C-alpha cells in the first residue's frame, strides 16, 4: 500500500508565490508607511532625554495605577535599564510592542464583539485562533519577508498574529458572560441591539476585555526575541545576539530589561482593570 503524499506544502508554496507576485506591491507600500510611523514614534521617544523620560514614565504610572510602589518600581527599573546601556534597545522594543498591541486590539476587540454576536463568525474565527496561537512563528516569519521586508514591520506582522487571539477570545467571552436576566431586561425595555451592546454588554465586559488586552501586551513582549531573528533588533535582538555568542551575562541583562518592561506594563494594565470595578 503506497498512498501518495498529499502535496499540502507544494500548494501552500504556490499560493504564497502567487500572493507575492500579485499583492506584494500593496503590502510593501503598507510596510513603508508602517516603518515611517514606527521610526517617528521611536525617534520621538528617543528625543526625550532618558532621565526626563524615566521621571515622566514613573509619574504617569503612578497616576494611572494610583500606586506609589509601582511608580517607584518604574523609576528604579528604567534607571537600571539605562545603567545597563540598554536604553535605545528598550525604547525600540517598547515602540514595537505599543504598535503591535494597538493593531492587535484594533482588530481583535471588534472581531471579538462580532464573534460574540454572530454564531457563524464565531464558528469561523475560533479554529483560526487555534492556528494563530499554536503555529510556530518561524513558519510564517520567513515567508513574510517578501511581503513586509526584513525588519520591524515583518516583526509587527508576526507579533500581531501571535498576540491577537486573547483579545478576541476574552472580548467574546466577556460579552457572552453578561447574565441573561440583564439581557432580557434590556430587551424588555425595548433597547435595540446596538443599545444593548454599548450600554449593557460592553461596560459589563470591560474587565474581561482588559484582561485580554493585558494578555496581548504580554504575548507581544514574549515575541520580541523570535522577531529578532528577522531583524527586529531592540531588546530581543540583544538577547539573541548574546545567546548566539554565548555571552550569558549579556543575555540575562537584556532579558531582565524585557522583564522590567513587562512588569510595568502588566501591573499598570491590571490596576486600570481593577479600578474599573
Amino acid at each position, binding site marked *: 500500500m503506497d498512498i501518495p503524499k498529499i502535496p499540502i506544502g507544494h500548494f501552500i508554496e504556490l499560493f504564497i508565490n502567487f500572493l507575492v507576485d500579485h499583492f506584494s506591491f500593496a503590502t510593501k507600500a503598507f510596510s513603508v508607511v508602517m516603518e515611517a510611523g514606527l521610526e*517617528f514614534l521611536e*525617534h520621538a521617544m*528617543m*528625543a526625550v532625554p532618558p532621565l526626563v523620560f524615566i521621571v515622566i514614565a514613573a509619574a504617569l504610572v503612578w497616576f494611572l495605577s494610583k500606586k506609589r510602589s509601582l511608580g517607584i518600581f518604574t523609576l528604579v527599573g528604567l534607571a537600571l535599564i539605562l545603567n545597563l546601556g540598554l536604553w535605545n534597545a528598550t525604547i525600540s522594543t517598547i515602540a514595537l510592542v505599543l504598535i503591535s498591541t494597538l493593531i492587535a486590539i484594533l482588530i481583535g476587540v471588534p472581531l471579538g464583539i462580532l464573534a460574540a454576536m454572530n454564531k457563524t463568525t464565531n464558528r469561523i474565527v475560533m479554529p483560526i485562533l487555534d492556528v494563530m496561537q499554536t503555529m510556530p512563528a518561524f513558519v510564517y516569519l520567513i515567508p513574510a519577508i517578501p511581503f513586509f*521586508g526584513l525588519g520591524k514591520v515583518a516583526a509587527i506582522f508576526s507579533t500581531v498574529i501571535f498576540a491577537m487571539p486573547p483579545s478576541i477570545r476574552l472580548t467574546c467571552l466577556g460579552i457572552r458572560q453578561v447574565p441573561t436576566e440583564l439581557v432580557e431586561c434590556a430587551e424588555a425595555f425595548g433597547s435595540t441591539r446596538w443599545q444593548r451592546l454599548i450600554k449593557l454588554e460592553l461596560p459589563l465586559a470591560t474587565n474581561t476585555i482588559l484582561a485580554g488586552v493585558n494578555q496581548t501586551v504580554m504575548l507581544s513582549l514574549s515575541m520580541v526575541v523570535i522577531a529578532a531573528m528577522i*531583524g527586529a*533588533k531592540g531588546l530581543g535582538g540583544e538577547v539573541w545576539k548574546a545567546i548566539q555568542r*554565548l555571552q550569558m551575562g549579556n543575555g540575562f541583562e537584556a532579558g531582565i530589561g524585557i522583564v522590567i518592561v513587562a512588569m510595568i506594563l502588566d501591573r499598570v494594565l491590571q490596576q*486600570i482593570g481593577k479600578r474599573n470595578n
Partner: protein
Amino acid sequence: MKRIVTLLAVVALIAALAVPSFAGGKKVKLAYVEWDCAAASTNIVKAVLQERLGYDVEILPVAAAAMWQAVASGDVDGMVTAWLPVTHADYLERFKDKVEDLGPIANGAKLGWAVPSYVTVDSIEDLNKNADKFNGKIIGIDPGAGLMRVSENALKEYNLDKFELVEGSGATMTAALSNAIKNKEWIIVTAWTPHWMFGKWDLKYLKDPKQVLGGAEHIDTVVRKGLKEDMPEVYKVLNNFKYTSIDQLQKVMAWNQEPGSDRYENALRFIKENKAQVDSWLK
C-alpha cells in the same frame, strides 16, 4: 477607559514634540547572520561604504534563512556571508534565479567535526570504538544547516551506528562544548572555520579520510538581482571586496573578541591598516 485615552494622548504629545531626524542620502541595507566571521566582514563593508563613499549603511543581524530570503526578495541589497558550496547550498539552489553570486571573499573556510585537543581520538574512523566516552552523541547545530546534512552523510558513510547527531543551534553547541571543556569531558561538535571557538579553546578537527564533510568552503558575497544597475558603485565595492587570506579575517575576528571592543571601530582599524587593499576595492 479615560486613563487609556490619557495614556494615548501623552504618547501622541511626546511624538508631536520630537523632531524626527530622517537620514537623507543614499541608503544601503545589508543582512548578516550573528556569527563572528559574518559580523566582522559586514562591518568592514559597512565602514568602507560609509567612510569612503558616503552611503548610509544599515546592517541587520538575522537568521540564515531570513538573510537569503531578504536578498532574494530584494529587501536588502546583499550580504557577504554565503557559505558555499556546502553549508548554504540549499538556499542558493532555492534562490539562484533571484540573486547574484559575486564570488568568494575568503577561501579556506572549512567544515568538520571538532574535539577538544585533550581527546586522544584523531580520526572519524576511530569514533565507533570510543562511542561510550562520547556518550554516543555528536553535538550539532540548527536542523536546517548544510553542515548538519553533511554530518548525517558522514554518520552513514563511516557506519557510526553507535552515534546520534543531536540537533540544536549554534548557541547550544558552543554551550555544550564550553561545559564539556570545563569538566574535561569528551565531546564532538559539528564545527566550522572561521569561528571564535577555535580562538577561545584548544580544539582540533577530526580527520575525515573519506572527505564526506566537504573539502574547503569559501565565503561568498551575494547580492540581489539588479543591484548592478541601481547602485553601480556599491556593486563594485561588493564585487571587489576580498580578503588576502582567511587569516586576515581571523585577525579581525580576534580583535572583535577582545573585551569591550567595538566591531565598527575594528572595521575602521582594518581600513586604516590595509589602505592599499581597500583602495583597490574602490577602483
